[in-house]
């Protein structure tokens, strides 16, 4: 029962009571039919139920009215008054019904208006559904609920009031919006008009619309929030410019990139003030035309390629690279309304590119020659301007740092030399003068070789990344310097060793004339395996020539062993075969298939007879009367077998005879596709008149046939009996 109904009931009862009181007070009055006026008042004001209550009360009072109107009972007038009362009661009930209908109509319309006005801007779906059921209960029904979702998968969004004991007592109306089921409305204990299907249809339509709008607006809010979150979390800076070029949106990354403390500060700044914080140039360092900025181009309605800028922060001196891409956003009129700029900081990538290129160019330059004075100069020139404005390299000399390479003025500041000493002793790089200079050590794994200094390009400052790059550059230079030094040491060792393997001078032996030729192959560091020697023995003189299989330091060691074993054993024992057997044993003892070929010639002081023994070596050539023939007998090379059989061949030499010993480097010498060969050698020597003539002929023929460069060592020893 509502307050209105209660009030109407009270008014009705007062009206009825007033007429009863008048009827009682005035003994002559007979106005029982008027009692029903209260019911009519109650009906008009309060509706059918209040009218009915008052009508019942009024009718009862009219029936018992003879109590205060004596003598009235049973009269015709009394009966007539009762009929009039009954008729008035029907009138009261009818007006009540009418009043109810008007009230229902009014309530329904109010409800529809309220529902239609419900979706408040920014309200969430939860808030909207809660307000909807609040509207319905208790004004419209005892229970109302909203379920969301397509049929069969609905979830309760909100409910109010007491749910009916039997769920099927609730009236379920589906909610449809934009052609799809979005949920259902459940109503139970609705007021009389609630069961009007037409009204329910209209109501559910309105509710569906309200829910849909609330959902849509929530989706929009969610999308906007998500978009904001995405833009905030992007590493790339995003700004949006309007037609005037003013910034209307920026994310935090943009604020950071453009040097503003916050997004708000950035958006409040004058675009020119933002640009003035930096010196911007194009990628290659040439001046920037602002009209070429992608944002400007896009706002002017033109296509814009991504633009890479080199940007120098005037305050910090830090140089960075940015890539800007702009996309137009058309307005309702089709003209470009906004430009969305995505600005990517590509500094790390560009620095890495520059660093990689510098390091690889420097490495190539350093590898190009062992002369590190020249290569460091090249590296210094490569470092400018890729890394620095000036670059210099220093190496210690008698305890003092000495510049050995620098760009034109080296950027050497007064303090750099002192700092250099410090860096040399600590091996730690220093970033000097607010980042305008770097002094970095050049270190190998073991030690600091020297120091390099870099001074920054005007207006720029070095960063820690530049220090790392300087250190890496220093490491590569140090390695190159160390390698060059090691190489020159190695070359010196090799040259010294090789010199020790050759007889300084052939001895003077009465009755004999000697000459020799030695041409090592390749560089001096590459010690060859050919050796020869002439030394005195008990019986006379021994001439030996040998060739160790292989090259390099291991072969050099064998060469020394071969030469000195043959010399020692030859001088002591005096027999060529014993000397060769001795060397064979020594080689076998090594156990690594160390091989050597050798020929030994014993020349007696007291006899023209020479003994020749060959161990795997090309047979000596005898030039007698201008004609050439090989002499000696082939025996196995040294080091190949435990037991060797080397048989001496005796040869009686006559004055003028020339005996030529040589290594396979002579006959293996390559000329185009051909080899020099034994036959060509014999032809070369045909007609040779002396030891030196024989050697000269071979030298000249080899030079002509093969040129100066040879794959293998060449050794020739010529012995002439005078």
């Amino acid at each position, binding site marked *: 029962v509502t307050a209105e109904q209660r009030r109407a009931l009270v008014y009705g009862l007062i009206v009825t009571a007033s007429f009863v009181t008048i009827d009682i007070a005035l003994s002559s009055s007979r106005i029982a039919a008027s009692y029903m006026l209260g019911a009519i008042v109650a009906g008009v004001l309060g509706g059918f139920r209040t009218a009915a209550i008052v009508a019942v009360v009024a009718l009862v009072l009219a029936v018992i009215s003879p109590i205060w109107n004596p003598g009235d009972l049973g009269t015709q007038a009394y009966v007539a008054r009762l009929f009039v009362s009954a008729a008035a009661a029907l009138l009261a009930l009818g007006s009540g019904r009418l009043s109810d209908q008007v009230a229902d109509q009014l309530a329904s319309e109010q409800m529809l208006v309220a529902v239609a006005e419900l979706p408040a801007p920014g309200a969430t779906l939860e808030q909207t559904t809660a307000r909807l059921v609040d509207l319905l209960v208790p004004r419209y029904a005892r229970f109302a609920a909203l379920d969301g979702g397509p049929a069969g998968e609905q979830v309760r969004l909100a409910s109010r009031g007491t749910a009916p004991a039997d769920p099927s007592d609730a009236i379920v109306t589906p909610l449809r919006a934009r052609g799809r089921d979005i949920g259902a409305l459940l109503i139970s204990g609705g007021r009389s008009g609630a069961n009007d299907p037409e009204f329910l249809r209209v109501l559910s339509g309105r509710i569906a619309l309200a829910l849909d709008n609330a959902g849509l607006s929530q989706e929009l809010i969610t999308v906007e929030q998500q978009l904001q979150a995405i833009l905030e979390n992007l590493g790339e800076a995003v700004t949006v410019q309007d037609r005037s070029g003013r910034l209307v949106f920026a994310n935090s990354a943009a604020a950071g990139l453009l040097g503003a403390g916050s997004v708000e500060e950035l958006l409040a700044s004058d675009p020119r003030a933002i640009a003035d914080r930096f010196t911007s140039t194009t990628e290659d360092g040439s001046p920037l035309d602002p009209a070429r900025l992608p944002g400007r181009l896009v706002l002017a309605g033109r296509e814009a390629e991504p633009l890479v800028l080199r940007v120098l922060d005037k305050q910090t001196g830090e140089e960075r690279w940015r890539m800007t891409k702009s996309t137009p956003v058309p307005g309702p009129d089709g003209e470009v309304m906004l430009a969305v700029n995505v600005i990517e900081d590509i500094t790390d990538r560009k620095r890495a590119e520059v660093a990689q290129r510098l390091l690889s160019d420097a490495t190539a330059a350093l590898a190009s020659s062992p002369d590190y004075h020249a290569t460091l100069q090249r590296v210094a020139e490569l470092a400018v301007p890729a890394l620095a404005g000036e670059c210099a390299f220093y190496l210690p000399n008698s305890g003092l740092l000495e510049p050995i390479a620098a760009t034109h003025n080296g950027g050497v500041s007064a303090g750099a030399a002192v700092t250099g000493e410090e860096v040399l002793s600590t091996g730690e790089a220093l970033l000097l003068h607010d980042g305008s200079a770097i002094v970095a050590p050049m270190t190998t794994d073991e030690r600091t070789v020297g120091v390099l200094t870099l001074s920054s390009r005007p207006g720029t400052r070095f960063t820690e990344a530049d220090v790392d790059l300087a250190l890496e550059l220093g490491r590569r230079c140090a390695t190159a310097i160390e390698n060059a030094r090691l190489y020159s040491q190695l070359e010196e060792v090799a040259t010294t060793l090789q010199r020790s393997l050759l007889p300084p001078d052939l001895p003077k032996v009465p009755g004999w004339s000697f000459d020799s030729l030695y041409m090592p192959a390749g560089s001096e560091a590459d010690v060859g395996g050919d050796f020869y020697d002439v030394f005195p023995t008990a019986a006379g003189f021994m001439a030996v020539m040998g060739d160790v299989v292989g090259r390099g330091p291991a072969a050099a060691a064998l060469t020394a062993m071969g030469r000195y074993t043959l010399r020692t054993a030859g001088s002591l024992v005096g027999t060529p075969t014993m000397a060769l057997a001795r060397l064979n044993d020594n080689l076998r003892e090594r156990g690594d*298939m160390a091989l050597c070929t050798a020929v030994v010639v014993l020349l007696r002081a007291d006899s023209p007879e020479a003994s020749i023994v060959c161990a795997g070596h090309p047979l000596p050539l005898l030039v007698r009367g201008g004609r050439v023939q090989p002499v000696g007998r082939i025996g196995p090379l040294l080091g190949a077998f435990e037991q060797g059989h080397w048989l001496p061949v005796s040869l009686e030499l006559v004055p003028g005879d020339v005996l030529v010993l040589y290594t*396979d480097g002579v006959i293996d010498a390559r000329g185009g596709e051909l080899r020099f060969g*034994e036959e060509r050698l014999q032809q070369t020597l045909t007609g040779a008149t002396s030891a030196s003539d024989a050697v000269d002929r071979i030298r000249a023929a080899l030079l002509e046939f093969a040129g100066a460069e040879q794959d293998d060592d060449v050794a020739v020893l010529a012995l002439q009996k005078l």
Partner: protein
Amino acid sequence: MGHGLVAASGNFDVASEHSGSSLIVSPRGEIDLATVDLIRDVVEREHQPGEDIVLDLREVGFMDTSGLRYVLELQARAEREGFAVQLVRGPSAVQRVFEVAGLEPRLPWLDEPPPAE
């Protein structure tokens, strides 16, 4: 018949083939200090334990003492591990190197590789 394998470097290459109980290794070109390791690599890779080795020198145009040393190494290894090494005679320039080194009478020679079984 086994599969063929070729390793090459410049104008030098080495073919190898498993045939019956033998690995036939056929270098082609000039054997010197620079190329001998290629033969060594092919043998290391292809040789199965106990398998005999036939070194076919017919396509070798030139050989210096590096080649001799490899042959002797291979023979020493064959004695230790119990397989046989045989050589197919090469051109005269190659045979001359074996001859001068006094090795020709001490090595097992074939005129051509054994037929496939």
